[in-house]
């Protein structure tokens, strides 16, 4: 059965598709010092939808990508939480089960394509290895599948790319290879961490188009993690905004990006130069910025994490963390402005 056929009949799942509940992850230094990265993150992904995760440095977004499949570095520790996928908790699954899920049911594309490929193994081999990890077909069959897969992401050059080494490819080409590896075994969920960060604008556009095409063709659910809100516009169905290891706001993309409710989201979107949008700030005027820097999660005071930099802060904000409040159709915010 060809890959296209496998993907055309996705397995039926119960909704929601992926559910993350109260995830706490920290990094422990040699000396035993704890550095929290995720402090109670909860969200869900519905079947077939694209969730954009918007987060800047220090928000915990990359930790999230690694934690979903338990691929944290040696000093990372999942302290608490549940990740429900297709009926089981990934955080408590047996290693064998996890290995079967990785790549075959959920695929993760990490940052920095130039570092994510083995420098001494040919591209074709590295793709073949992904297939070989989940099925025991003969070498001939695997080679066939590899070329077929490469043709999806490299319409003209597939055979040459298969024989190349990673350092012989450009950044955009490397990213395509990573995407190919991710969809090889027909996963239903693909998590992409900053897939466009180090690329030129036209390459970025090509990669996003490629994502759209594959998402359509193989009925993928996607979690796209990025720090650039503009990338999510027109691509994500829903957007989750992360700040300091927690969710600040989550809702339909047009709502979150068009009329953001959380003060952080609002301030973030306002700080972007708008010369190319319909409304333009005056050129060379000062952009409205979020004062200060991202908080140091090791030394957090009680209260809302954004309070110190928030334009709308109130006295209540220093006393405890805000609960999640619904402000619209599946649009939720974690802010005292909208309720306690």
């Amino acid at each position, binding site marked *: 059965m060809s890959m296209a056929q496998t993907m055309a009949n996705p397995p039926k799942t119960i909704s929601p598709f992926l559910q993350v509940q109260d995830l706490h992850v920290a990094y422990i230094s040699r000396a035993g010092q704890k550095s929290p990265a995720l402090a109670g993150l909860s969200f869900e992904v519905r079947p077939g939808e694209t969730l954009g995760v918007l987060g*800047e440095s220090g928000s915990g977004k990359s930790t999230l990508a690694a934690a979903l499949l338990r691929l944290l570095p040696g000093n990372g520790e999942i302290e608490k939480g549940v990740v429900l996928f297709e009926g089981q908790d990934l955080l408590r699954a047996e290693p064998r089960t996890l290995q079967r899920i990785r790549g075959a049911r959920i695929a993760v594309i990490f940052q920095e394509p130039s570092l994510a490929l083995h420098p001494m193994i040919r591209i074709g081999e590295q793709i073949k290895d992904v297939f070989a990890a989940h099925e025991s077909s003969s070498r001939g069959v695997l080679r066939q599948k590899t070329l077929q897969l490469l043709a999806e992401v490299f319409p003209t050059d597939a055979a040459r790319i298969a024989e190349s080494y990673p350092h012989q490819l450009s950044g955009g080409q490397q990213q395509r290879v990573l995407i190919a590896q991710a969809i090889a075994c027909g996963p239903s969920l693909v998590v992409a961490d900053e897939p466009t960060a180090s690329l*030129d*604008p036209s390459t*970025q556009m090509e990669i996003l188009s*490629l994502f759209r095409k594959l998402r359509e063709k193989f009925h993928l659910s996607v979690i796209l993690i990025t720090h650039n*809100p503009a990338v999510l516009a027109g691509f994500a169905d829903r957007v989750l905004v992360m700040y300091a290891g927690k969710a600040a706001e989550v809702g339909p993309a047009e709502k979150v990006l068009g009329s953001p409710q959380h003060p952080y989201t609002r301030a973030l979107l306002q700080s972007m*130069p708008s010369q190319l*949008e319909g409304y333009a700030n005056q050129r060379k005027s000062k952009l*409205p*910025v979020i004062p200060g820097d991202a908080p140091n999660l090791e030394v957090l005071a009680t209260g809302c994490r954004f309070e110190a930099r928030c334009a709308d802060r109130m006295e209540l904000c220093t006393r405890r963390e805000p609960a999640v409040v619904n402000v619209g159709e599946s649009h939720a915010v974690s802010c005292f402005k909208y309720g306690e």
Partner: protein
Amino acid sequence: MGLNHDNAERLLIVENLEKVYAGRGVLGTKKEVIALQGVSFSIRPESTLALVGESGSGKSTLAFCLACMERPTSGRIIFQGNEITALDEKQQRAVRPQIQLVFQDPARSLNPRFSALELVSEPLLVQGRLHKRKREDRARALLAQVGLPQEKALQRAEEFSGGQRQRLAIARALALEPKLLILDEALSALDCSVQAQIANLLLELQSSLGLTYLFITHDFAMAGHLADEIAVMERGKVVELGAADRVLREPEHEITRRLIAATPRLGSAAHLPQVV
């Protein structure tokens, strides 16, 4: 290309700059790489010229030539009325402090083990100016000017965040009181909200110190925001050059149009993807 050069008025004039790298291909064949071809433009004092292009367009080569780190194969660079391409190595060294570079990745352009104070004093030390006490005072003043708190002066570079490190890189570039600052993708590696902070800092410094900027980037949105004039480069050539407003609203060259279309934007109801 549509702008007349009043030589007396322009801080920097570049005329027909060419840079060819003689390389060796596989099996020893001679392979020439033409990095810059016939590049001409100029920058008015205290203004910002944005140089927009993708990788391989020659932007960084141009930056190195202007900062006197590379010798162009042919063409002229006239800075403050002096033709610096005609100078020899020693004379060029006198000009270098006037033109400083800020790079894209502060993690790699700053020695992570040095403290902020040491990094900013280093240019002063190398140039042999001022004695120790004065150097430290000047370094502290620079740190304050870029918005870094004094308590952090003795912290090592590796302990700073990305945005703070870039401020540090800027402070260091300002140590020798340059007239022209070349920012080579200086904002590209930063988070969006941090880009805004640094952009504001740059604008502030421009007006308080009378700096001139050459802002190299592939981000048209930021270029449109910070620049007075925009030049677009493709494969070593300048394909479009003009006032920022004009280039954004009425781009003439196909490359410019393509780059503007490829820049992701928020108001995306109208932003339809191009077919790959």
